[in-house]
């Protein structure tokens, strides 16, 4: 990787995010440490959805189900006495990934709106499964006794420490997802999105590739769910409600479909707006709704695409040439 202004900007962002828990108390913004942590986690979930939605062209409307699977895996294991994050978090990703793979084998047989509805149906079933789990609180949700343990001497109960761990996990996962889209696998997914018939004719195992992509996205959403559970210390079926899945789709589209920063940008914009609007008016849904309509009408490629528009033609041509070059096998 060559050292570009982009890498520099990313490094700066990472440093700023890492410094936040140290700087925030100076300005009396302690409350926002938890908020930024939540934004980071949701950004990861949105990025995982963008992986299949934007890069894979699979409009899945059940992503909150996988987040919930991850969160409830943490609940179930904690209830059984497991406290180590080294077991909790990978297990959350594994369980959500396996569930996603099972759902994918059925859902990927359908196309278009039927696919949207099938993923929604499975997510609804998961939702009602956890509602009926009275052992884990059912409708009322489940309060976790304490945060997981990671390393001896590292107290995750400390807000700043937990924030840094979340930041590290999210940054690593985002980087890995980005690498996956740049790899042959990611290009194959995009190829299927753009022309499934051609990819099949070229000999690509379309169903298998889509299924693996779907399972990966599910696993990372599960990891996000585990982090969310650890952060909130509380898990309830509301995390898995279908409107949460719709909100994630909205975030991805607002941010930019199939753009490497689409998911995180959308998550940040949506959550920050929600937070700001809530402080000013009881009727905070309406401005968000109007924003959605405006984006759908006038910025259909998302906010992350707006910055590209401003680039000069030469720069755009150059980046297109690079993209074409890297696409070669």
């Amino acid at each position: 990787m060559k050292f570009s202004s982009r890498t520099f900007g990313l490094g700066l962002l990472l440093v700023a995010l890492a410094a936040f828990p140290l700087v925030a108390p100076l300005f009396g913004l302690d409350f926002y440490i938890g908020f930024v942590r939540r934004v980071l986690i949701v950004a990861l979930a949105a990025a995982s959805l963008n992986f299949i939605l934007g890069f894979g062209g699979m409009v899945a409307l059940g992503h909150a189900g996988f987040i919930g699977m991850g969160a409830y895996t943490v609940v179930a294991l904690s209830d059984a006495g497991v406290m180590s994050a080294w077991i909790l978090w990978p297990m959350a990703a594994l369980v959500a990934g396996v569930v996603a793979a099972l759902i994918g084998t059925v859902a990927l047989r359908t196309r278009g709106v039927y696919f949207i509805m099938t993923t929604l149906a499975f997510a609804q079933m998961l939702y009602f499964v956890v509602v009926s789990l009275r052992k884990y609180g059912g409708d009322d949700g489940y309060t976790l006794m304490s945060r997981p343990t990671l390393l001896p001497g590292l107290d995750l109960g400390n807000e700043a420490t937990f924030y840094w761990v979340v930041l590290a996990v999210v940054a690593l996962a985002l980087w890995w997802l980005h690498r996956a889209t740049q790899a042959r696998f990611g290009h194959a997914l995009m190829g299927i999105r753009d022309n499934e018939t051609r990819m099949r004719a070229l000999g690509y195992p379309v169903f298998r590739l889509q299924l693996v992509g779907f399972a990966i996205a599910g696993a990372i959403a599960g990891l996000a769910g585990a982090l969310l559970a650890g952060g909130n210390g509380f898990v309830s079926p509301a995390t898995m409600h279908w409107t949460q899945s719709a909100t994630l789709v909205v975030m991805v589209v607002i941010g930019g479909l199939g753009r490497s920063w689409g998911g995180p940008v959308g998550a940040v914009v949506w959550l920050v707006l929600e937070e700001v609007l809530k402080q000013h008016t009881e009727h905070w849904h309406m401005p968000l709704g109007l924003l959605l309509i405006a984006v759908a009408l006038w910025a259909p490629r998302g906010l992350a695409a707006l910055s590209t528009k401003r680039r000069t033609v030469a720069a755009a041509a150059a980046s297109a040439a690079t993209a074409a070059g890297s696409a070669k096998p």
Partner: protein
Amino acid sequence: MSGILVLEQLLNGIGYGLMLFLLAAGLTLVFGIMDVLNLAHGSLFMAGAYVAAEAHTRTGSFAAAIVVAVLVTVVVALLIEVLLMRRLYKRDHLAQVLATFGVILVADDIVKMIWGPSPIMAPTPAALSGPVELMDGLPYPSYRLVILAGGVLMALALYVLVNHTRIGMRVRAGASDRPMAELMGVRVGRIFNGVFLLGAALAALAGALMGPIVAVQVGMGEAILIPALVVLVIGGIGSVRGAFVAALLVGVVDTIGRAFVPMLLRATLPPATAADLGPLFAEVAMYALMVVVLIFRPSGLFSARS
């Protein structure tokens, strides 16, 4: 479990199914003809329920309440069509989902501003508040009979309109192959306007009729939207007949899941397990039905486009 009880639950299921049909019919035609996925359809249902409840309380007349609800909702739908839907025809489903999800958020807040955040009362018409003895030992709420009758009447009217009139022929032509219909001289755009408004009227009617037996509250549109979409997908997009069959199927399966499966579980399993599993089956039955149908027929039972 007595035969009477089965019959009563079956009637409830059919009533619910008919209401779902009123919603799904508009949804499936709009989708079939214009390829537009309108998530805000449930908001029109909510509008119908709220306006009807308000009009009923003010005028004291149930019939007037229904007429006002349908008229107001159609005007709202006209506004939505002119201001928004027209710009979405040529967009992909994702943009449509995004924009109409935006409409849901706006609609919920407008309702909250007018009627407040808590549920409101939708009165049952006084003349219809008592039960009717359908047969020996089967008293049935007369209001539910009105719902049944209204649903059947509207289904019949829609059937005649779609299958036995020239307008209906054009609607079907637009739904099954839009470019060809246009080549044959059907003005699909104008047909669509009519269908969209008709769909809104049916949704408002369903809302007005359902108001007295469900909670009239913010979010009721989203709650019924999902079952309506399930009906649309099971029936096959663009098919009114499919929507009708699927709506009755979903209505009955949902009722069986809610009423009989828990009973069966209680009779066969330990009480604690039954109490856990009962509600699960109740809620999941409809989705399980959809998944099973899609496994065997990936584009629904009666897809208009084969």
